[in-house]
């Protein structure tokens, strides 16, 4: 009877396989018009004038909108620092500036897409170019060139952690490892480029049918920019073709709503459709932050860590997006899941004229983990210790204090996850003392024998990580769901209304399973009403690996409350329920002291590589990934997420080479920005799903969509070191970078 823990078929499988599912670009309405956006295509300049007359005069053009048409010309998830449209005539200070090539200048609405594009090209903009800042370290220290002059600095976020006394601790350390690391930009490359249909609905609401990650936040940002009450704006998500964090911020949402609304004010009541090309998508939405990380770690001879000092700078591009939150994660995770008595961290998010950056699977975790885990692997090498042994010696256990001075929430499984991953990968347990760090060594039979004469060198690497589940550092964390139980003597139908965005991760199926389980009915009796701000409550975003955890608890709570009414003979029995997660607190500005998160997932990975020292190509032979998911509500979906995360992390680590020059994009299409194809994926991915229940997760579940991504890059870098003897402190490990590292290129 129970559906929890069963790999039931996805509720959206049939529609997606047959093509019946409709994505935002698939919707059409009679008499619709089409929109095109004029992008800045220059990295830093002041707009002196915009000439729209020629465009407006083109037959078939309905309207051209610019900054003067935006009532509140600002938006932004962590701070409203971005104009909706850059240009003249709005009240927003310095909205006449463009700060990256993807800034939006004007909207053209026309009878056809072709006319709209032609009219867009007829718009002339006079610019006065400004100096272009592309080096985040220079941006941090340069106070001459300011991207946002009203802010007085290019640094818009600085976190500090001060725990213990690092200087004294370093003085007592037996070994100190210093590292300077750089992590790359990554494009989300979701299957579905941005697309939407905007219209005024039957109740007069400005409505957009789009792809996003948080209906209610989109609604709020649209309402703010248009100066409308919330209930005059409606956001609907149909099927969504991938997100990975790339749809958290606005792309077309506000401008589509703006165009529809302004047209209707001119008496033109017509739906407006927009579909971005792949090139527009790559230009128009944010990327994963590149980080520069300078760090030094000290340990005693026995491998016990005594101190870690880290300086991080995140290149946020022209606007903040979610950079402050991403930086918080990186600040916490840059010292790894380890008990370090003395920690000093300074983390900065800075504006530059590079591509804007924001949320992307892992959300600061992969960047922090790359530095932390590479430091651990290099410490192990310096101390001639096994990389698993040194981790088990330092791993955070229940009750140990994080760098921010508080313990992890109950349900810490990091030691078990590390050990089980290692055993799966061929390590041997040498001591069985469960109470203390267990001695564990790489088994000799597993150590690769590299033939001296061959170009092919094999190696294995190991890394571990922890990933928060849910919003962090004091951000309000809640999730609504409505349950309506229908029937007479018996339950005939359970209707769940919620706004969890189904971006392909399978959350609708999980919600269905949660509802069926809580109501004690089969999944076939559950019906979902989803992602429409007029009929569903605020579920929060599909981000931070949170939705199984949050919606699971909300749906469970709603069904249980409705069941109470059902037993009290209410027909239908309806309950509206808000799940509120345990409280977290922000970083103290001086010391970083905080309760950062209410739940975590724990992960460890071992990777076998084969490096071709002649061609520089790295082949992934085998990926062993151990993931504590608490409870796999739907094991097949969990494994799918693990495999997907590994492949995406593989692209990040080995292949995806995002190139910018002087603020311009060199890899703006899929023929120049290469992502893995099915032929490039690892020879074998061995997901090892562990289920140490989270005490507050629904049925013990933890979130897990991001965590397999985190330890992957450092594990590969360690494996490449094992194979070649070379440490790489920067990736992607493209063949050219590998050959250069091996000294093969002059």
């Amino acid at each position: 009877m129970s559906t929890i823990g069963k790999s039931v078929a996805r509720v959206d499988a049939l529609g997606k396989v047959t093509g019946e599912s409709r994505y935002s670009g698939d919707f059409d309405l009679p008499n619709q018009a089409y929109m095109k956006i004029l992008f800045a295509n220059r990295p830093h300049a002041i707009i002196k004038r915009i000439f729209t007359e020629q465009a407006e005069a083109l037959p078939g053009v309905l309207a051209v909108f610019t900054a003067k048409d935006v009532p509140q010309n600002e938006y932004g998830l962590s701070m409203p620092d971005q104009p909706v449209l850059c240009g003249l005539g709005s009240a927003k200070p310095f909205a006449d500036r463009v700060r990256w090539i993807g800034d939006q200048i004007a909207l053209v609405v026309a009878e056809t897409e072709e006319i709209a594009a032609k009219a867009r090209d007829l718009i002339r903009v006079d610019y006065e170019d400004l100096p272009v800042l592309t080096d985040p370290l220079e941006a941090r220290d340069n106070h001459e060139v300011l991207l946002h002059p009203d802010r007085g600095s290019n640094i818009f976020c600085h976190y500090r952690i001060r725990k213990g006394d690092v200087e004294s601790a370093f003085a007592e350390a037996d070994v100190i490892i210093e590292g300077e690391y750089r992590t790359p930009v990554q494009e989300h490359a979701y299957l579905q480029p941005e697309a939407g249909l905007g219209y005024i609905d039957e109740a007069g609401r400005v409505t957009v049918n789009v792809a996003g990650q948080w209906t209610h936040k989109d609604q709020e940002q649209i309402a703010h920019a248009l100066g409308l009450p919330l209930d005059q704006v409606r956001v609907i998500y149909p099927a969504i073709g991938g997100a990975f964090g790339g749809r958290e911020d606005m792309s077309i949402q506000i401008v589509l709503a703006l165009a529809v609304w302004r047209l209707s004010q001119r008496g033109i009541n017509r739906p407006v459709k927009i579909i971005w090309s792949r090139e527009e998508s790559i230009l128009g939405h944010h990327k994963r932050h590149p980080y520069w990380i300078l760090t030094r770690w000290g340990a005693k001879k026995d491998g016990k860590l005594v101190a870690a000092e880290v300086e991080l700078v995140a290149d946020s591009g022209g606007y903040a997006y979610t950079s402050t939150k991403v930086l918080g994660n990186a600040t916490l995770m840059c010292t790894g899941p380890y008990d370090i008595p003395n920690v000093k961290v300074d983390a900065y998010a800075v504006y530059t004229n590079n591509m804007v950056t924001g949320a992307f699977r892992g959300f600061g975790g992969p960047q922090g983990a790359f530095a932390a885990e590479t430091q651990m692997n290099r410490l192990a090498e310096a101390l001639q210790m096994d990389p698993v042994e040194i981790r088990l010696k330092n791993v955070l256990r229940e009750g140990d204090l994080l760098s921010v001075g508080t313990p992890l929430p109950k349900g810490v499984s990091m030691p078990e996850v590390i050990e089980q991953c290692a055993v799966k990968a061929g390590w041997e347990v040498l001591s069985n003392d469960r109470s203390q760090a267990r001695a564990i060594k790489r088994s000799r039979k597993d150590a690769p024998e590299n033939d001296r004469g061959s170009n092919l060198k094999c190696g294995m690497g190991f890394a571990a990580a922890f990933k928060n589940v849910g919003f962090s550092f004091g951000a309000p964390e809640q999730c609504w769901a409505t349950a309506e139980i229908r029937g007479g003597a018996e339950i005939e139908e359970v209707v769940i209304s919620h706004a969890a965005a189904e971006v392909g991760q399978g959350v609708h199926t999980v919600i269905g399973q949660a509802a069926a389980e809580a109501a004690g009915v089969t999944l076939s009796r559950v019906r979902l009403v989803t992602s429409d701000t007029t009929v569903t409550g605020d579920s929060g975003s599909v981000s931070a690996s949170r939705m199984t955890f949050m919606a699971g608890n909300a749906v469970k709570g709603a069904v249980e409350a409705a069941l109470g009414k059902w037993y009290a003979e209410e027909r239908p029995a309806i309950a509206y329920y808000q799940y509120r997660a345990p409280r977290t607190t922000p970083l103290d500005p001086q010391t970083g002291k905080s309760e950062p998160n209410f739940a975590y997932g724990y992960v460890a990975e071992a990777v076998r590589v084969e490096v071709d020292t002649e061609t520089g190509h790295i082949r992934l032979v085998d990926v062993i990934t151990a993931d504590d998911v608490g409870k796999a509500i739907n094991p097949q979906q969990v494994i799918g997420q693990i495999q997907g995360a590994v492949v995406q992390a593989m692209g990040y680590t080995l292949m995806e080479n995002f190139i910018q020059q002087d603020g311009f994009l060199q890899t703006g299409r899929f023929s120049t920005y290469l992502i893995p194809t099915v032929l490039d994926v690892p020879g074998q991915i061995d997901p090892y799903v562990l289920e140490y229940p989270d005490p507050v997760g629904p049925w013990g579940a933890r979130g897990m969509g991001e965590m397999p991504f985190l330890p992957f890059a450092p594990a590969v870098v360690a494996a490449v070191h094992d194979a070649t003897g070379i440490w790489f402190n920067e990736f992607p490990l493209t063949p050219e970078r590998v050959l250069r590292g091996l000294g093969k290129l002059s």
Partner: protein
Amino acid sequence: MLYRKYEVAQTLPEALSLLSSHNGAVVRPVAGGTDLILQLHERILSADVLVDISRVPELRGIRLENGQLVIGAATTYTEISRSDLVLKNAFVLAEASKKIGAVQIQNMATLGGNIGNASPAADAIPGLYALQADVVVCGPNAERRIPITEFHQGYRKIDLNPGELIKEIRFAIPAEGTGTAFYKYALRKSQAISVVDAAVCVQLSDGVIKHATVALGAVAPTIIRSPAAESVLIGEPPSEDLFDRAAEAACQDARPIDDIRGSAAFRKYLVGVCTSHAVRSACERAA
């Protein structure tokens, strides 16, 4: 619109007449369209009229004619890679055809299109250089036969007059004892443009290389031959040391540039990798 009019030619005379019958309009032939349509989209090229030549029988198919292999310009890579005549006589072209784009592109793209597009990173052309092929072009009044090395005059520059079409490729069947090979270096296993590639033909006689051609892709404004590598090879028995020396010689002939796929230094190094692999495979196949 990418173009105003799309016309489908059924015969070669009809194709030639359609190509020259639109006064003042920009008329372009299209076969697979895998390069052309992208370039129209990106506005690198423009066109008023497209003339579809993919069904013209005179432009299609692979045949033997007086000791020569003839490949119609509108023959697809899938057809080339599956052709027994090619597999037997010009393996290098079959090998290259399977490395172009991915299956979907191989099903659409044509040899003539690759020659006309004249990219220095074209995967099929190094093999044609190594096979010392000729390009046959036809105009309304006459045919011309031009060595491929002369047909490609410079970066994306070809010897084709208005109204002319690339009709076919011809080359002499390699002599007994010849082995051919293509080696492509790219940053992904499929759907990737070559960073460097090499095509090689060697003829072995009594254990010694009697004849050798080495062609390199993506290291100069056009595909190039490497005379230095060829002269290293000729007269020598195949050996690992010889492959290394040929590779070194090829590096001297390459004139690569920096671009997003790699630096000049990286490409220079890869010329050696590609050359030694291709020469080794060609010698193995010749033996």
